[in-house]
């Protein structure tokens, strides 16, 4: 039986000081999925295999996934429930092990059936969260998602109690992929981590998606670590996972690779256990296995030779700002109720937590973010969220609206920055 390959593998690589890299990858058929995982396993760097679930299964439309599979239509991921636990276990036979753990990545707001199936397949790691898989992608009421995720955490706890240590990664470091300032991403990560722990999860990870500035991201990862140390129970096993940028991706090979390199540097400097990579195909289509392997190797190589040179003074200033606000948001939520799930629900309903630009009915959507002239993600408006800043950081200091043209500029900030031809150096 799998005793918890994922948790052990991360612990060992962290002790060696090596970054684990991980793709996003899912195929409809059992054989294709196995072949993809086999190639990832053999890529020659510390790697964890990923099974990404298809979009029908993500929204609990299992019959549609079954039709697609039967009629030979393309699926954009692995329909784990349709294949079933037994077939999935057989697909992983001799592949998953102490040297090659496998994680299921999915995007499901109501994932009870998926959790049951993946655990029955002998898989010990997955990801998501009651907020992070509800607000950005689904129409499920937050209260319902919170109840579903409590149930799922308890399933993981029950399996852990029977000898398979199960790992859960919070997806809260990504809300909407881009334009969410780090103080809120960090606070949501801590809150989901506390939620997981309260429902019996003993091994978890906290995520953070690369933003628009390396030094700001470094500061944010320090805050995430500090708050995890302060807030998570001491008997919880946890690490940090970095996502390569999740927004509009550069179109050129050079630009995409530069952005990936920077995320690997961020992961290394920030002491992350894992990095989830992206590929230069991202702006255009779903990447091939080969493109994923190239990204895994490139990211790992960069992490092994990462320069630790960055503006420490600036990072310290940013750390203080982000820490202050993330802690304030976390505490303002926790004081609402003794039950963490209920506290999170009330925080969103009352607008104490407010994801900028998020259209979900349970999100106030009154807060606004901007990218400031230094390239930092900042609050342009706090909405109803608590803050100690005397002003939001928008140009001119006043709380201000963000127009359609400004939004488009901000969404394509990294694309434009990394696709731009390199500037000639001073001696040219």
């Amino acid at each position, binding site marked *: 039986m799998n005793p918890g390959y994922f948790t052990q593998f991360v612990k060992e690589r962290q002790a060696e000081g090596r970054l684990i890299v991980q793709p996003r990858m899912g195929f409809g058929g059992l054989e294709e999925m196995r072949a993809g995982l086999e190639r990832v396993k053999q890529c020659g760097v510390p790697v964890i295999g990923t099974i990404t679930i298809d*979009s029908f299964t993500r*929204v609990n439309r299992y019959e549609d996934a079954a039709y697609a599979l039967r009629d030979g239509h393309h699926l954009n991921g692995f329909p784990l429930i349709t294949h079933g636990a037994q077939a999935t276990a057989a697909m992983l036979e001799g592949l998953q092990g102490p040297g090659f753990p496998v994680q299921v990545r999915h995007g499901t707001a109501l994932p009870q059936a998926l959790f049951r199936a993946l655990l029955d397949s002998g898989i010990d790691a997955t990801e998501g969260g009651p907020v992070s898989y509800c607000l*950005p*992608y*689904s*129409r499920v009421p937050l209260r319902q998602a919170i109840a579903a995720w409590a149930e799922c955490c308890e399933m993981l706890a029950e399996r852990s109690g029977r000898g398979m240590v199960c790992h859960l990664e919070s997806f809260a470091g990504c809300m*909407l992929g881009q334009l969410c300032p780090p103080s809120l991403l960090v606070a949501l990560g801590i809150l989901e981590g506390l939620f997981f722990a309260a429902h019996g999860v003993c091994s978890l990870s906290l995520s953070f998606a690369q933003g628009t500035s390396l030094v700001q991201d470094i500061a944010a990862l320090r805050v995430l670590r500090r708050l995890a140390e302060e807030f998570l129970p001491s008997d919880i096993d946890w690490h940090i996972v970095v996502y390569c940028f999740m927004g509009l991706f550069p179109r050129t090979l050079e630009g995409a690779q530069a952005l990936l390199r920077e995320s690997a540097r961020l992961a290394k400097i920030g002491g992350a256990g894992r990095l989830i990579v992206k590929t230069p195909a991202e702006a255009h289509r779903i990447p091939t296995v080969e493109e994923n392997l190239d990204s895994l190797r490139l990211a790992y190589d960069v992490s092994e030779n990462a320069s630790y040179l960055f503006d420490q003074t600036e990072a310290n200033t940013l750390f203080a700002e982000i820490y202050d606000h993330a802690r304030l948001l976390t505490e303002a939520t926790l004081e609402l109720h003794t039950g963490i799930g209920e506290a999170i629900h009330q925080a969103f309903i009352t607008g104490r937590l407010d994801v900028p*630009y*998020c*259209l*979900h*009915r349970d999100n106030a959507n009154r807060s606004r973010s901007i990218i400031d002239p230094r390239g930092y993600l900042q609050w342009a408006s706090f909405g109803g969220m608590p803050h100690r800043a005397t002003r939001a950081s928008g140009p001119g200091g006043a709380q201000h609206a*963000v*127009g*359609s043209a400004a*939004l*488009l500029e901000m*969404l394509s900030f990294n694309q434009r920055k990394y696709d731009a031809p390199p500037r000639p150096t001073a001696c040219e």
Partner: protein
Amino acid sequence: MKVVLSSIPSDSHTWNLVYMQLLLEEMGYEVVNLGSCTPVEDIISGVRDHQPDALVISTVNGHGVAESAKIAGQLHSLGLADDVPKLIGGNLATTGSLTPEQVSCLRASFDGVFTGERAVDDFIAFMNRSSRPHQAAN
């Protein structure tokens, strides 16, 4: 002037909807944003309850051609189709650009189809053209 803004049932993207809401608000419209993965029933009730001056469907996942036909069909069978101008835009087919057949199929049900590089500019021009007489009539 009011617009009901929606996506289609299978599309979970939201940035296009956030952008379109801002754009329409800047043009002076009140926007009822139904959000992503919009069920057909929600679009129907949105049109029925809000009596908008236009229904705008924005979608980028490539299933627009297939799923908008269902939406238009439902509106038609409920007798709501003629009450409201229906506009659709974004990335509407998985192949990228639309075939002539797909375009004529969409045009049969929609008053405006906006796709490709000039989609937003064409949409703005369309809205400016059609809103003036309406405003004058008020």
